[in-house]
């Protein structure tokens, strides 16, 4: 089928629009990249990149002088990845139970969870703060991780996904002598790979970017996560934009890498719940 003129035109418009949108979206990121490698005096002298000779890594050096950035990076990596692993395990286990078993109190539990999903997390911040204080978890990583260990959203994601898995699979496994936990571990989870990928990424991002709670809980600057640390660079009267941009660039890299690795699973998994739910 040969496209006629009109469709050629329509295709042209589509491509132009798409390219324009992509360009508009990428421009700020490009600027960020440029700003991180520009010297202080060049920052506003060149809109994007200066001549290659003026590119510099001085901002990164200053960043490391201004703060122990490597430690902050590792703090963030530790908190985010631990949270993901814990959430993933608890969430998928409970989601599996909700999808594949009938038990007393299931309905009540579901309603309760839905209700908390409707209540914004900020409502509980004040009492949670008190609780963390009582538990002696102030200014500690457990204080960040433990309250986040359960993700109601994650449970629903896994429940939704596992609902589609035919029960026959479980029956067959039981006949083979699988324990219930084995069914979860060896059958259900490998099937849920796309969901696992999607969940890992969303959960990692949420924790990685989390700001308010760490800002409240963490006291010692040695424990800061990246968002909290970077916010320290934002000063009222003095601002080193170059350093700030270098820090921002480094802070978003891990998520970017993770996304590139998980892209397919992410899109598949993330949308599966929404489209079919």
């Amino acid at each position, binding site marked *: 089928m040969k496209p006629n003129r009109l469709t050629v035109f329509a295709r042209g418009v*589509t*491509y132009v629009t*798409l390219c324009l*949108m*992509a360009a508009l*979206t*990428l421009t*700020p*990121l490009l600027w960020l990249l440029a700003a991180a490698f520009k010297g202080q005096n060049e920052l*506003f002298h060149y809109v994007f990149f200066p001549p290659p000779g003026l590119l510099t890594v001085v901002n990164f050096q200053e960043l490391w002088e201004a703060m122990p950035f490597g430690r902050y990076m590792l703090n963030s990596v530790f908190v985010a990845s631990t949270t993901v692993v814990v959430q993933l*395990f*608890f*969430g998928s*286990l*409970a989601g599996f*139970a909700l999808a*594949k078993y*009938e*038990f007393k109190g299931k309905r009540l539990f579901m309603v*309760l*969870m839905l209700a908390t999903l409707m*209540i*914004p997390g*900020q*409502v509980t*911040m*004040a*009492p*949670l*703060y*008190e*609780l963390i204080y009582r538990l002696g978890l102030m200014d500690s990583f457990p204080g960040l991780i*433990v*309250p986040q*260990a*359960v993700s109601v959203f994650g449970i629903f994601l896994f429940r939704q996904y596992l609902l589609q898995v035919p029960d026959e699979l479980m029956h067959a496994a*039981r006949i083979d002598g*699988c*324990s*219930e*936990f*084995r069914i*979860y571990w060896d059958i259900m989870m490998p099937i849920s790979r796309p969901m696992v990928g999607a969940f890992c990424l969303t959960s990692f991002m949420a924790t990685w*970017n989390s700001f*308010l709670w760490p800002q*409240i809980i963490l006291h010692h600057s040695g424990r800061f996560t990246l*968002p909290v640390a970077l*916010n320290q660079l*934002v000063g*009222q009267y003095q601002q080193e934009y170059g350093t700030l941009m270098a820090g*921002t660039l480094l802070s*978003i890299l891990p*998520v*970017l890498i993770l996304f590139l690795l998980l892209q397919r699973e992410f*899109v598949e998994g*993330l*949308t599966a719940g*929404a*489209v079919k*739910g």
Partner: protein
Amino acid sequence: MTTRPNSSSSTHSLHSSRGYHLQQKMAPYLFISPFLLLFAVFGVWPIVKSLVLSMYATSGPKDSVFVGTQNYRYLLADADFHTAVKNTVVFAFWSVVLQLPLALGLAMLLSRRWVRGRNLFRLAVFSPYLVGQVFVGVLFSVLFIPQYGLLNQGLHATVGLPLDTKWLADPALVMPALVLTALWLYTGLHMIYLLAALQAVERELYEAAQVDGANATQQFWAVTVPAIRPTLIYVLIMSTIGSFQLFELPYIMLNNTPGPNNSGLTIVMYLYQTGFVTGDLGYASAVGWTLALGVLLISLVQLRLTGAWKAREA
């Protein structure tokens, strides 16, 4: 904390059917118990506690005075809270109204079968979401700088906007700046959802519509919208709830302040300020509950309006 159910020794299960059934009966409870425990302590209890706390005036967790419903009554008269609510509602409205159609439009363009480099376009448009609110806030606080910032330079060159337009210092422009930033940040995410939904629409439906002589607009309303309706509703509600919880973006972009004339003060920022800067955890809880009620109400209205009330039986 050990979570592995110890009853799951798989070898006897075949031999003893009583043990087998017991295991099957107990399994869900065991699977759910670690979650349940944490959920009860860190999910449910604080909610109950925050209701109680909202009846107190406090100065930090140690110093509190029972004030009954006074916090809620004061909320009704509190000019700053009114500003926060107004700002949040305005932000949520414009965010949803601008982000969703744009996301849908992009998704429809990208869902065309013949589009090449779809993954690249999708990645490009989606990439801001990966940056995260705090880092976007930092980046845009610099892009919005008057005189030398990228946005003003760009807008000056293209539409002649004055170079010294102070996006983040002019109370009238703070909200547009926030909406614009959110537009950049979230459109790609919505687009991913909608694109996936569009791609799942069966082709025959369109072919049938074409046979019936429906034009593009008619096809859109008759085929596309009904087919992607659950996703649309999901995205609508999620983006509304998300918008109502706006905090990091203005907080970072406005240098940890509510902005000139409180123009960037949101409900959550007000909650943070009263609770964790002033130290009135009680009042902050009252603010939180008001936010919760508002979000619930709006979600319900949206569900009702989109007719999803009965259709959605999850």
